């Protein structure tokens, strides 16, 4: 009979009798066991640096006899504890410097004083965000939409938008960052414009502007952007973008199935006149819905 208790063990050590071998081959165990034994034999553990470990042991041993075995907190843990503490403190600082959020609704415009008395005027449907406590060390505003800045001279002042950033010292400038549109107009001083995804910066002097990629001169009669004085002005704008601005200024719905380019302006104080100012140059008809909340431009 087979010695069942150690059969497979003796398979591994090669101590089987001929009879046992025959039986294992016949019932298929031979092949299975071979595979297990061979594959397990290819298993390995990470190499052990014996020399280094030995040195460490001897080192610890000598220390523990001289130092009377203090409960060991390894230096690396001390480092870790200190680092964790510093991290927590800095996170607390960052979180406690909560951001100030200012936003303007549709048909609304807001004038806001920044901590250093620099001024921001938000056009309708726009928002800014900045950190008040760290303002002195970093004058940085995040903008969505359009705003006019009058910056008190001082340290670098940065406006970040999704479309690019504007860096200035002390100056007056307007930033419009909406969808595909990124326009910067400089009215005083100097600004540096960085369009997202572009390597080169553009420097704007007073009365210069970038409309997306094009550098343009502004009339030196203009001390402020038009919208500050109640008028939106456009040069070669897609009608759709003009209607978006109309929606923001009057908080209505405006639509058109016509694809046109528009150059001109509309006022913010009278909807009927504004609609006329858009429709007329393009030869379009404008019709209002019954509740006057929607306007549609057609051929």
């Amino acid at each position, binding site marked *: 009979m087979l010695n069942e208790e150690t059969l497979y063990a003796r398979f591994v050590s090669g101590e089987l009798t001929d009879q046992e071998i025959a039986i294992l081959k016949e019932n298929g165990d031979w092949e299975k066991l071979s595979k297990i034994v061979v*594959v397990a*034999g290819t298993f390995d*553990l*990470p190499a052990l640096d014996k020399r280094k*470990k*030995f040195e460490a042991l001897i080192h610890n041993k000598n220390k523990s006899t001289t130092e009377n075995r203090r409960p060991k907190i390894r230096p690396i843990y001390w480092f870790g504890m200190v680092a964790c503490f510093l991290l927590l403190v800095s996170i607390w600082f960052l979180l406690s410097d909560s951001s100030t959020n200012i936003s303007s609704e549709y048909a609304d415009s807001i004038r806001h004083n920044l901590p250093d008395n620099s001024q921001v005027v938000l056009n309708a449907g726009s928002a800014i965000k900045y950190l008040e406590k760290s303002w002195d060390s970093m004058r940085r505003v995040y903008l969505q939409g359009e705003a006019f800045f009058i910056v008190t001279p001082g340290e670098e002042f940065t406006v970040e938008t999704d479309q690019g950033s504007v860096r200035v010292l002390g100056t007056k400038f307007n930033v419009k960052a909406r969808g595909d549109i990124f326009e910067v107009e400089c009215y005083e001083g100097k600004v540096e414009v960085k369009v997202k995804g572009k390597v080169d910066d553009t420097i704007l002097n007073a009365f210069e502007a970038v409309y997306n990629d094009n550098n343009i001169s502004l009339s030196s009669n203009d001390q402020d952007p038009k919208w500050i004085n109640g008028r939106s002005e456009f040069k070669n704008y897609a009608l759709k973008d003009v209607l978006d601005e109309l929606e923001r200024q009057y908080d209505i719905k405006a639509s058109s199935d016509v694809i046109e380019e528009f150059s001109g302006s509309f006022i913010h104080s009278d909807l009927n006149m504004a609609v006329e100012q858009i429709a007329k140059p393009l030869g379009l008809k404008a019709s209002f819905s019954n509740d006057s909340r929607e306007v549609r431009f057609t051929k």
Partner: protein
Amino acid sequence: MSENICDQVSFEKVYFKHVEHLRNFLYYKSGNLQMAEDLTQDAFAKLWERCASVVSMRAKSFLFTIANNLFLNQVKHKKVVLKFQQHRHKEKDYQDPQFLMEEDEFKSKLEKAISNLPESQREVFLMNRIDGLKYREIAESLGISVKAVEKRMHKALKELKEIFGKSKF
């Protein structure tokens, strides 16, 4: 022979001879490499403390006994998950991908099955397969009989053979 190992040269010899087997043994038990390496160092530290009373011939079983005790003193048993590196032979690089994939699949199945073995069987099986220790050497380390080692080995293989039943292998 009754020489002790209190001089650094003898101790170093003992260390280099056993350290890897001991580390591996503790890994087979715990599935935790860091713990295995720490406890290995602790076991040797204990050996050094008692060097006067342990002759070099007895050092191995002393180390394994101490290591086993240290391991038992650690946190309560968790489920062990063993992972191994695999040294493939060069010529296997030319095997077709299908074959290699099946090999990998088999490897992980085997790893899992080994992890699920009772500790006493698992350590015997792996000390033999990975460390290449003979049953007699394993018996010495664990302080049990060769017959007991063989029984554990047999049981381990019988259990591992089950993975063929559950798959196409």
